[in-house]
């Protein structure tokens, strides 16, 4: 390579006519596909140099290549290390040394093995650091927080699950980083009211504050709500926040727009009206798994004239509550009632008649809903873009035709586990903008309607046909030829699918997620065509494809260079195939359960060879077979083992399966009601 380029140097190089600025402009347009830039840099030395200087975002896939990558790219502003499980203090020192003046953002959320010292190095040297993500740094202590506090320009800070940081550390950060705009303290169990209160007092610029699963109580609410620019407040699972505190909140200015009170069990219908009267600018309210939504609560929503989106997932919503929401909210665009018990045709129909501007409606698992609601929803909310109605199996087949007839703007529809039939789907296929179509467990569907979808819905990106038994290769061929943008397809347990489908799918070059679980007709030949055609494949699930063997894996190792995740359980893979997978540099997650041809030694060799691995699911029986030093070594590389001890599962009759699944869901539902 080096020799070649030397030879070229002496000859005339037409690319020399292009100035760096022009090359930069060209590179600006090459953002979509990471391979494009790679090809660009391989054109000539000059291009290589320009590309190195142009790159602002670096996401190394392997820790051990980090040092070299740093040498190559001198002006990286954003360093995403989320694919590097092992980042030591040495690596951080090298980073901080190389990017003293340009680094703006660093993501260490998935990395381990660095200490307070490393963080201190980065923060002290990279003076212009604006964002730092230290989530999951469970060993980071207050001294680490003190180190962070030296970054006076810091604007965004993620400290999720930094459980050792206490009020003292947070207070230091509050004193040091006055410009903070975003702070995430999810699961910071060491942080209490005092620290949060202090940060809220000191960092006046905060826009976004995430305090999920912390031990804070009502005491720090006033100072948080007094933050002048606060727009987003997330309080998921804050059990210390209760009604008494909300009741004593004083009215004042607050610019809060998004409030998430998911799983705040102590905020009930008594406290909520106080809150809504306090945060009047609110546009997005999330009350998932909250209290009973009664008329009183819904009435209190009239204090929020700007409310656009409300999520009541898992709440018990009364009929009068729904009616009050319909009456009191002015411009509701998004409503989520997923898993809400108490949602009836009467309430929902009243609501949608009042809220005609609704764009997104989620009625997943509202099992009392029938065609009456669908009729009213489609009649009133004609501009719906998203409709999720999974498991609404009381809706009759005829109702689905109404959706297609009336809602032409649909982009996303979830019909999983409903009674939708060909006529219904044909009607829905009129929505030309449809990008996400979920048709899992729709036993009434056949090829006819899906061929229609393939003809019309050219924007389709996501298609889920999980256990839709009526589907054959014909449908997939139509989809593959009609939907070039397809990125994700699930054909799990579609028994009639064969290699032919994969051959047709290999034309979809953007395909990245392929799930063909339990399609027993699929063989290695199909897998190799996918590997050849879909270069961007990142997730492949071939569980229970018994005919897939080593021959199918070999093309994968050669062509699917961006494969991250693979599930090979129950396949006919041996040590050889597994070892070949080591060739895929960025493979991170591997599930290998119940592989008959696998030996412990072969597995050890394969795991050692796959150096980028972060998560491996294995049968528990291997645990005793592996030598302890090997396990330790893997752990030190940042690889986690998940041991499973499930017995071998055989296929079940789909009707029986669906029946049991629904029965189980109903039991859960009834338990919830009680």
């Amino acid at each position, binding site marked *: 390579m080096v020799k070649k380029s030397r030879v070229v140097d002496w000859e005339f190089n037409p690319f020399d006519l292009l100035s760096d600025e022009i090359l930069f402009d060209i590179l600006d347009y090459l953002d979509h596909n990471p391979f494009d830039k790679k090809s660009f840099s391989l054109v000539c030395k000059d291009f290589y140099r320009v590309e190195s200087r142009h790159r602002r975002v670096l996401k190394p896939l392997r*820790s*051990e290549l980090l*040092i070299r990558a740093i040498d190559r790219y001198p002006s990286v502003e954003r360093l995403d290390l989320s694919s590097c499980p*092992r980042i*030591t*203090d*040495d690596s951080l*020192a*090298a980073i*901080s*040394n190389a990017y003293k003046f340009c680094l703006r953002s660093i993501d260490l959320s998935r990395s381990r*093995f*660095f*200490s*307070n*010292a490393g*963080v*201190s*190095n980065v923060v*002290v040297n990279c003076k212009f650091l604006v964002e730092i993500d230290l989530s999951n740094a469970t060993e980071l*202590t*207050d*001294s*680490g927080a*003190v*180190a962070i506090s*030296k970054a006076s320009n810091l604007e965004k800070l993620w400290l999720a699950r930094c459980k050792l940081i206490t*009020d*003292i*550390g947070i*207070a*230091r950060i509050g*004193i*040091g980083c006055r410009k903070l705009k975003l702070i995430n303290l999810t699961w910071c169990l060491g942080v209490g009211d*005092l*620290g949060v*209160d*202090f940060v809220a*007092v*000191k960092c006046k610029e905060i826009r976004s504050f995430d305090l999920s699963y912390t031990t804070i109580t009502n005491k720090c609410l006033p100072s948080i709500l007094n933050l002048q620019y606060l727009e987003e407040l997330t309080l998921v699972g804050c059990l210390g926040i209760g009604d008494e505190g909300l009741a004593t909140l004083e009215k004042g200015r607050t610019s809060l727009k998004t409030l998430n009170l998911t799983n705040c069990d102590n905020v009930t219908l008594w406290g909520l009206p106080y809150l809504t009267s306090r945060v009047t600018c609110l546009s997005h309210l999330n009350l998932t798994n909250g209290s009973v939504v009664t008329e009183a609560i819904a009435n209190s929503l009239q204090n929020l004239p700007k409310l656009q989106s409300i999520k009541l997932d898992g709440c018990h919503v009364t009929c009068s509550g729904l009616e009050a929401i319909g009456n009191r909210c002015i411009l509701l665009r998004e409503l989520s009632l997923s898993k809400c018990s108490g949602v009836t045709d009467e309430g929902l129909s009243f609501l949608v008649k009042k809220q005609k501007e609704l764009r997104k409606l989620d009625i997943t698992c509202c099992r009392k809903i029938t065609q009456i609601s669908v009729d009213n929803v489609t009649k009133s909310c004609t501009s719906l873009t998203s409709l999720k109605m999974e498991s609404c199996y009381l809706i009759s087949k005829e109702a689905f035709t109404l959706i297609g007839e009336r809602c032409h703007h649909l982009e996303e529809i979830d019909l999983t586990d409903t009674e939708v039939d060909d006529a219904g789907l044909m009607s829905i296929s009129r929505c030309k903008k449809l990008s996400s179509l979920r048709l899992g467990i729709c036993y009434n569907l056949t090829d006819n309607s899906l061929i229609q979808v393939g003809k019309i819905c050219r924007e389709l990106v996501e298609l889920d046909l999980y256990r839709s038994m009526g589907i054959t290769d014909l449908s997939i061929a139509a989809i593959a030829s009609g939907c070039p943008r397809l990125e994700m397809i699930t054909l799990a347990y579609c028994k009639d699918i064969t290699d032919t489908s994969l051959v047709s799918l290999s034309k979809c070059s953007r395909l990245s997620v392929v799930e063909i679980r339990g399609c027993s007709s699929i063989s290695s030949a199909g897998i190799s065509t996918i590997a050849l055609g879909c270069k961007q494949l990142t997730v492949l699930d071939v569980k229970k494809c018994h005919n897939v063997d080593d021959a199918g894996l070999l093309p994968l190792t050669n062509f699917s260079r961006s494969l991250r995740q693979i599930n090979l359980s129950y396949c006919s893979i041996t040590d050889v195939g597994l070892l070949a997978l080591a060739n895929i540099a960025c493979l991170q997650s591997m599930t290998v359960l119940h592989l008959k041809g696998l030996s412990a030694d072969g597995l050890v060799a394969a795991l050692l060879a796959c*150096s980028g691995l972060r998560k491996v699911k294995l049968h528990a029986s291997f645990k005793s077979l592996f030598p302890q030093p090997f396990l330790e070594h893997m752990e*030190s*590389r940042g690889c986690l083992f998940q041991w499973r001890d499930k017995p071998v599962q055989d296929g079940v009759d789909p009707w029986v399966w669906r029946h049991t699944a629904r029965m189980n869901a109903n039991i859960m539902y009834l338990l919830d009601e009680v």
Partner: protein
Amino acid sequence: MANPTWRLGQNSDVDIELWLLEMDFNALERELKMDFKVKLYSESWNDSSLGNDKSKSSMTNICSQKPQLKWDDSSSPDCDMRIDSPFPKFNEQSESLSPRSYIHDNQIKIQDQIASQARGMLFDVAKHKDWDPQSMLSNLSFLEQKIHQLKDLVSFIVDQGSLVAGQQDELVAQQQQLVSADLTSIIVQLISTAGSLLPFVKSPLPTPSPLSGQLGGTSSVGRSPNVGMSKASLDNNDGSKGLCNSDQNKHMIDCVSDHNCTGKTNHSHSMSSFDDHESKDEDDVGEGDHLPPGSYEVLQLEKEEILAPHTHFCLICGKGFKRDANLRMHMRGHGDEYKTPAALAKPNKDSSSEHMLMKRYSCPFVGCKRNKEHKKFQPLKTILCVKNHYKRTHCDKSYTCSRCHSKKFSVIADLKTHEKHCGRDKWLCSCGTTFSRKDKLFGHVALFQGHSPALPFDETKGTAVSAGGETAETSNRIGSTELNVGSNSSEGNNIQNVVDVKGGADDPACYFSPLNLDTCNFGGFHEFPRPPFDIPEGSLSFFLSGSCDYNQNNGSAPSSDAFS
């Protein structure tokens, strides 16, 4: 001390002298009025003259009106005009605050007090006629200035009040307080000026009057318009050794002749308090639990009684108890008659207690402020207070804290309270202040710019590098002059660094032991043959060791490659 004989003997003389003083005061007053032309001043007189009018009506049958009438004649035209003067609002509102308005309200009560003061003055006038006009003049001109200032303020308030119709209560109250405070100071000044003329403070006071003490705070200022009343009150006091507490002054006449004097117990006390009432009248107002002297009974326990472990003793067997409830429980064993509900009930909660005098206690230690002989005597509320007070102030501190071995206590409860918190001053601020409570630390840090909560000692010790950075920074902040300190701290940290390096065994690739450093490739840093830990130069050593760290890391790159 006071000598009633004097009063009795020189009654007529006193009358005359009083009259003289009144004339003097009136003259001075008019002079002031004319000279300063202060509305407010006359305004404030207004009140008193109003009060005077009322008191006059109530007193017509008591004493001769001549002097008073004369005084009224001299000043009342002025006063009457000003009753409707542009400050009616101020007048009403200031009632509760200004001492003079108090007079207005409770004029009758005050008369006695004023009378006694006037008497005092009179007495002194009679004795010390020599005074310094020069200092008097300067005092008066000072007063003039002050009154001018006050006048400006009040006129400003008036303007404001006319502009803004609905003034906020807070503001009004503040202004009132301001004005009344100024007024009070002026009055005090005036009195002290008069005092230089009549230095009665030093002289013994003529009449022991419990009420004078009671009203000391409010009526410290002897109002010359009221001096006319002094005759009446003098007459009143004649023959009585002290006024009855329960008695109201409006029935003064009744009091004069047939007085059941309950004041015997308070006698000495009220005398002593009267002694210094002139000086302490200002600061006494507003002190907590300030019972007027005389409204309670003063008891004094002996030292032995106070220090006795038991205060309640069984009359039958002699066993002692700390609490009377325990005694009552014990008494049950002596017979059935002690088991009745009446015998077991708490004894001192009977209905007649309302009529009984409240009990207050005096400390037996002479010279103590809590001793009744002290001129600023402050009584103790309960026996327990006496015990604690006596042990804390006048006994040896025999209980030593078992944790810090330095704090000593004489009350065991204090020791226990201390031991709860001793050694827990774990919350440390960067300024060096320690706190026993985290919220106090946070309050402190929030209050002061530049302060920050410091990490607990053990943690800073554990994580060396960042701690080193911190001390280096602080030494930088301290400045280059204190290089010694800096080098010490950084050296200490470097030592910790070494310790930490050895301690980091679970991740060998993270750190390199000093041994490795020697063998490792240092790149361009060969000019530093020593390991970085030995560099002694102050805060610089931090940066040097930091930069060596990088090279050390660069050098480690191949080995980490080999590892993974």
